[in-house]
């Protein structure tokens, strides 16, 4: 077959989308936009909670060296290992949630 004949044949191979393709696409885009807005709010909330937990943890360990104040003596008496487990689990939960949100909204090209 000649070049022009190939061109003629392949020009005929164009496939048409379904009739409601554009409407479905525009709906998906709208949904995507709304989900993204909600996700950003959720991300900020989770980040806030995680930062508070980290701050508490850092504060607790810094102050645990000081034995002058009776309040901190009380804090020192709190068992550290269960507390660490709880904090670590919370952090992992928060990170897992953020990763899931990121996957849902990821735009790869």
């Amino acid at each position, binding site marked *: 077959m000649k070049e022009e004949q*190939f061109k003629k044949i392949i020009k005929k191979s164009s496939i048409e989308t379904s009739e409601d*393709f554009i409407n479905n696409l*525009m709906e998906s885009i709208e949904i995507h936009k709304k989900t993204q807005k909600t996700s950003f709010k959720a991300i900020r909330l989770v980040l806030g909670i995680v930062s508070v937990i980290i701050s508490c943890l850092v504060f607790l360990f810094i102050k645990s060296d000081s034995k002058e104040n009776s309040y901190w003596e009380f804090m020192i008496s709190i068992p550290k290992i269960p507390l660490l487990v709880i904090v670590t689990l919370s952090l992992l939960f928060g990170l897992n949630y953020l990763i899931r949100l990121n996957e849902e909204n990821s735009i790869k090209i």
Partner: protein
Amino acid sequence: MKTKNQIEDYDLIRNANEGDTNAFRQLVYKHKDVSLSLAYSVLKDRTIAEDVLQDAFIKVFHKLNTFNFKSSFSTWLYRIIVNTSYNELKKRKTNISLDEDNKDNFLTPIEDKDFMKESDQKRYINIALKQLKPDESLVLRLFYLCELSIKEIEKVTNFKTSKVKVDLHRGRDNLSFQLKQLLGDDINYLL
């Protein structure tokens, strides 16, 4: 020099970037059929190709503000579609077989020996193209349907020049062979 078509695309992109969803709608309308043909070349399944096209256009919508107006919009768009299609192909490789989509493969005998309906022509050509390797049918469509140059095909597919040329050559041979297998002497109705 920019063509009238490119200038029209650029105007639509500018309007879409300013929040005009109707402009984006027009942009999709202009490119959707060729884009679907490209996705179909890779995925060989119409339903999956249309789903992938939806995802690709969503990406385009979100990335439209990064388009730099230096290259052609269609080349930029085809690159996104081709990448999304190959990513989907990797995910689904085990699930897609060439025998799927039986509706498309169903052949009706040619009723009028002096005439083949346009819809029948299209179906036969697509069945023949479907038998080709994804790379070959994609390169053929990019070259003849989208009228891209070898250099532009390289940009869209990330294939090397030699691969583009080989795929084009093999694609032509294989398409010709498949059409002869399918239609025999009736191949002349297509020409």
